[in-house]
């Protein structure tokens, strides 16, 4: 009994000491920080460069790959008992939710979440959305008609013209599936209609972009930034914000329980959520999680994008059933 209370007292003391120290001031953070990310190559490089400018004492080691590859590497490292990364910055909250359920993530209750879009971060403060990557409809400029809503895509005039990322191979697309199938206005019947319209599910967003920009398909279910970046470079492509709203993934940042350099990991999370980090996201062409820093240049001035709320915990829970149903539906 006595020893228990003593231990409780000691840990209370330790907590108090930590609270007193507060978040370490920037100049004190140093050492090596290992980051695993699925950001596109150039964004990853810019993010790291900006972070290092704010914290010159930290050496950042980056592993960048696709979300599936990053999660595969991480799964092997967990199984081998030596996870290497301090922080993760990966495309979708569902992967983070799965890691959280496995007890891999370190909560960061002091993270500054005021001003962040509601629902963009975990209420348990383990992972925090860094931006909002919405999924809408990409349209080849040579296409005959323009859909105004998701429901439009189910019309017969779009038959054979639609490409979408397959939720079987892309976590972000799986979140989209989980979000849209729970909507009363769309639901599974929307996907059944898409299938009846001969929509094809390709491996990922990159493949959708290629199909629509090259004119193989007229319409694509695609993430916003890819469409707008390609458009800015001259691809014959437009982006439609469907009337029902847009599902979004948040590219969350999180620190691992096993982080070797927790101080630097916290500094990285702080940086991503700071005004500076958010401005960087906006300048790279993403809708920032903190709306106050301003929208990316492609954002329709004065417009308000209608986001579809996603219940991540529920999506993760129903994910394997959803994928099975999707595979059966599109496998016919």
């Amino acid at each position, binding site marked *: 009994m006595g020893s228990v209370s003593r231990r409780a007292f000691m840990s209370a003391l330790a907590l108090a000491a930590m609270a007193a120290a507060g978040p370490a001031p920037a100049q004190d953070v140093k050492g090596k920080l290992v980051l695993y990310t699925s950001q596109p190559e150039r964004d990853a490089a810019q993010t790291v460069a900006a972070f290092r400018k704010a914290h010159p004492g930290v050496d950042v080691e980056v592993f960048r790959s696709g979300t599936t590859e990053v999660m595969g590497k991480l799964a092997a490292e967990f199984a081998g008992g030596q996870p290497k990364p301090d922080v993760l910055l990966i495309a979708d909250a569902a992967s983070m939710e799965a890691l959280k359920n496995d007890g891999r993530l370190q909560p960061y209750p002091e993270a500054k979440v005021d001003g962040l879009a509601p629902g963009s971060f975990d209420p348990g403060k383990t992972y925090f959305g860094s931006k909002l990557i919405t999924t809408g409809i990409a349209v080849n400029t040579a296409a005959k008609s323009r859909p105004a809503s998701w429901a439009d895509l189910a019309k017969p005039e779009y038959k054979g013209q639609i490409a979408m990322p397959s939720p079987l191979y892309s976590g972000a697309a799986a979140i989209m599936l989980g979000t849209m199938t729970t909507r009363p206005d769309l639901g599974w019947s929307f996907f059944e209609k898409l299938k009846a319209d001969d929509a094809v599910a390709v491996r990922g967003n990159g*493949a959708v972009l290629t199909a629509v920009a090259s*004119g193989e398909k007229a319409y694509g279910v695609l993430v916003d930034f890819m469409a707008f970046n390609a458009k800015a*470079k001259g691809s014959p492509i437009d982006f439609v914000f469907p009337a029902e709203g847009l599902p979004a993934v948040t590219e969350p940042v999180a620190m691992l329980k096993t982080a070797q350099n927790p101080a630097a990991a916290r500094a990285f999370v702080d940086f991503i959520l700071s005004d500076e980090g958010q401005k960087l996201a906006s300048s790279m062409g993403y809708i920032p999680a903190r709306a106050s820093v301003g929208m990316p240049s492609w954002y329709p001035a004065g417009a308000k994008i209608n986001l579809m709320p996603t219940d991540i915990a529920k999506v993760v829970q129903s994910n394997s059933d959803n994928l099975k149903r999707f595979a059966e539906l599109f496998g016919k």
Partner: protein
Amino acid sequence: MGSKTATSLTPESTADDTSITSRTSTLLRLVALTPKLFEDYALLTWLVGVVAVLSLLPLARLVAEGIAPGGTLSTDAIARVLASPTTWTATGHSLLTAFGGTLLAVLVGTAVALCVGLTDIRGRNAVVFCFVMPLLIAPQVVALAWLQSFGPSSPLLKMLGAAPAMGSRNPLYSAGGIILVLGVQYAPLVFLTLRAALRTLPQELIEAALAGGAPPRRVLRTIVLPLMTPPLLAGIALSFVSCLGNFGIPALLGIPGNYVVLPTLIYQRLAGLGPGVLSEVAVLSMLIGAIAVLGIVAQESMLRRRDFRISAATIAARPFELRRLRLPTEVALWTLIGIVLVLPLCALVLTSLVPAVGVSLSAATATLDNFRFVLFDHAAARRAFVNSFGLSATAAVVIVAFAIPLAYFLVWRRSRLLRAVNLVTEIPYAVPGVVLAIAAILLFLKPLPLVGVTLYNTVWIILFCYLARFLVLGLRPVVAGYHQLDRTLEEASQIAGARLPRRLRTVIVPLVAPTAAAGALLIFLTAFNELTLSALLWSSGSETLGVVFFSFQQGGDSTYAAALGVLTVIVSVALMLSTLLVAKRLPPGVLPWRD
């Protein structure tokens, strides 16, 4: 007539030949253990040990994770995977596409090899050069090029006014499309293996048959093809395993039609966020490994039926004169090259010259910005060239140097152990790269026991995986080369007192040099483009070309990816051509593109 000549040259069956060593009891062997034999056994032990570490250890570690996650034995994953109907659908699809792709690769590869190796067509070296080049272009790039060439966005079909309407379903999104592209992609594997072996075809046999009045077609059927059985089977085995393990082509052509094969199913499982992912991946990998091993067992049983040795000191056969058929043959060959090389290459070049996908190329839109970005603004791309070159060249040299003594034992000192060794070399090449990478991570995450060095997150773990994965690409051609050798020269030098290392160096290496060089080339070209392994294993500073290419493609920057692809082809072609400078100092037949 011809067939009699061929069999009279090879009167003894292989089983008799090897029985003396393999059937002697261990006790007798121990009694007779002279220092010379001891040396042989030391070498053999070392070779078997290396194969065990390379081919068996990583996947054994993964399988251990699969059936005993966290150390407790559980057959849940096995039961779950085997009970899922998707597993069996994917297995059926894998078998169908692997058999179909292999058949096509063998037909195309053999036809081209025979034309180049036996007839008097003009420009043979150019044909060889152009026909192996598709190996340099990553499979998914070839698949994409084909897709675009026959789809609504095809610049060629648009020019002809024959482009299908936007949205028409591309016929390549099907099992047939996968088989077609796999067959074209791997035809050079069969071609290179056969091309090297055709050089040893004895002139006297063919001339005797021709003098005896046999028409060329019968010479082909009764002499050439029977004698070419070992390299042909080696080529079949290689392309079967390659088709079985390919991920890029079914990913691009199969996913849209929901045509799932085992490698794409593994990827699905990895992306599915489910618990116990590694277990399911391990079980599915065992399934692929088992199919690959069965394939090679079938090949072995065919090989054992007869003996294919030919006298080693031979002059290359005089080419068949095609006469009236020469021009049509040449036209057919170059048309084929147009389809398998020029078409994808053009698509690659066109994409690399436009600022964004979908912009049509014209004087106003053409730009070199993509090349400038890749070469000058992107430090990783330059590092990747150096890394990929170093890794692929090292892997090619090390594997071939290892494969020559290993194949000596595999072919001439058969035993059950060696047969097993031969089989396990297939496995790391048959499983998707991502699986081997995960297995290597499990193995090398912690410092190596005894030495305390950590390979993880260094370039050495990538090299280890290259050696494990591409060993079979070097081993198959070399083994085929041994099968064709007459052992008398080696035995003569043995009687004269030369020990094994010396016999290898002075007698055997010169004789198997052409097939060994073909193997080294296969390894180099394949590793230079390798993508799925390094996508999980690279670390800052150890990027490979595949990693950079993958990053570009995945971020939607296909124009950068195309520019990088074009540069890869240019660099590789320059390297291949530069070998001509030292060609005079190499043993004859080492360079497939030089007569």
